[in-house]
């Protein structure tokens, strides 16, 4: 059974420092917040900055739950889960946001590959969930419509 790399020993973000002492409370060193990846404006470049490549494979084993039409672009509920094994990380990209990388989730062997959060979406966009399982990146993409101009103010 392939042992999943613990965060200390893995490079979550290609091009980021492997391990850097961070301002966090514990004694363990966590990889630094990947500023470069969060600043990138293009989806493809963003993916490359995270994984070092752009070889993504669509998979029905990645389950992305997002509304088809968001009630409110300020707070869109997103859930990602997968039946894939050996999941190291889950990333969520919002293609048409000013910076597509919204958030990244690095899992230890204790964690289950299932996460959820609420994101801001500036406009209608594809939302892509990317799961790193072993050496491959599997994705699931869904369009989320964001409407403005309601009567309710």
């Amino acid at each position, binding site marked *: 059974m392939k042992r999943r790399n613990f965060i200390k020993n893995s490079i979550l973000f290609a091009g980021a420092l492997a391990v850097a002492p961070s301002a966090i409370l514990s004694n363990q060193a*966590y990889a630094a917040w990947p500023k470069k990846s969060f600043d990138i404006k293009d989806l493809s470049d963003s993916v490359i900055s995270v994984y070092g490549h752009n070889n993504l494979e669509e998979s029905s084993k990645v389950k992305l739950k997002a509304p088809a039409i968001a009630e409110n672009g300020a707070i*869109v509920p997103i859930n990602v889960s997968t039946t894939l094994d050996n999941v190291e990380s889950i990333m969520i990209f919002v293609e048409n*946001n000013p910076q597509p990388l919204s958030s*990244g989730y690095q899992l230890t062997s*204790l964690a289950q590959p299932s996460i*959820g959060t*609420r*994101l801001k979406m500036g406009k209608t966009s594809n939302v892509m969930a990317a799961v790193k399982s072993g050496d491959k990146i599997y994705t699931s993409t869904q369009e989320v419509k964001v409407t403005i101009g309601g009567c309710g103010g």
Partner: protein
Amino acid sequence: MSTIKLRAKESNGVVTVKALIKHPMETGQRKNKKTGDLIPAHYIQEVHSKANGKDVITIYWGPAVSKNPYLTFKYKGNKGDNVEISWVDNQGNRDTNTGKVK
């Protein structure tokens, strides 16, 4: 009072952790309506969680995460586990809270 509200429930050996964190998550792109100045970016960048002292998950957030951010994740665990969640934001502020798994 902590900025982190945390709930953790175990079922069939899997613990579901839910957290709601009080934080403005300012992108740095919004303007103050009165002065026209940009409101400085102020958002959580990292969230860490441990169960009984062991790392469970490390999370990187950007400003696109909603205000008063919500987070949920799962891990293999038991009732009575001690779950800890900590965050650090781009201005160096931080907070931690712990809770027991029900």
